């Protein structure tokens, strides 16, 4: 019976050590991760409005496309939105820049793993420039043949973004 007690005790000790080690390492890495995420966010925003300062707004109605809306002081807005295109395991995350009166002035894909050669064509520079940039809320965003699933997801993102910006303005 003593041996069983000893092994149970040892197991509890191993468990305690494991828990303590994880908490300790987490103590070190948690701030580093947060800081990474924060300055990565800033980097993306700065790409949209070089050296603007950003305040996060939340005056828009929540829908599952919009991740966050920022206002660049008296220069415009930046909307971060996500949707699932053809690839249903990794969402498309996009950052859209608006000027003060709600016209899109820039767009950049933060994360997209659509099929190369088909869906990925939506994210080529030329296509993005002329379909998504300097459009207002009432312009129609057209889709790309051969990449219907991806471009319709982008359409959903653009509509949600326009709606959010109009509410916030």
């Amino acid at each position, binding site marked *: 019976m003593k041996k069983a007690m000893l092994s149970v005790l040892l*197991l*509890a000790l*191993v*468990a*305690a050590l*494991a*828990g*303590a080690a*994880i*908490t300790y390492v987490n103590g070190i890495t948690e701030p580093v991760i947060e800081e990474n995420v924060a300055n990565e966010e800033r980097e993306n925003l700065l790409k949209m409005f070089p050296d603007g300062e950003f305040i996060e707004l939340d005056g828009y109605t929540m829908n599952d496309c919009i991740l966050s809306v920022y206002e660049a002081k008296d220069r415009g807005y930046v909307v971060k939105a996500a949707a699932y295109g053809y690839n249903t395991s990794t969402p498309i995350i996009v950052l859209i820049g608006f000027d003060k009166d709600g016209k899109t002035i820039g767009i950049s894909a933060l994360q997209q793993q659509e099929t190369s050669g088909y869906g990925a064509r939506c994210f080529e520079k030329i296509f993005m420039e002329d379909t998504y940039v300097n459009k207002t809320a009432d312009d129609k965003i057209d889709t790309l043949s051969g990449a219907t699933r991806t471009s319709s997801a982008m359409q959903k993102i653009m509509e949600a973004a326009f709606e959010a910006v109009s509410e916030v303005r």
Partner: protein
Amino acid sequence: MKAVIYVVILVGVYALAYILNHRTKKPAGCENLREECSSCHIVSCPANAVYEGGKDRD
């Protein structure tokens, strides 16, 4: 600190389940239930070659 207690409780539950399971005897008639899957070498699977040799260990 809460994390340590939490992990210890969790491991305790697992150890309890593990020991309870090994104490309950297998129902009659299926002691040497052996599946001839030879190609995967998952060690925790009783059909594994490791158990052949180490019969006395368990």
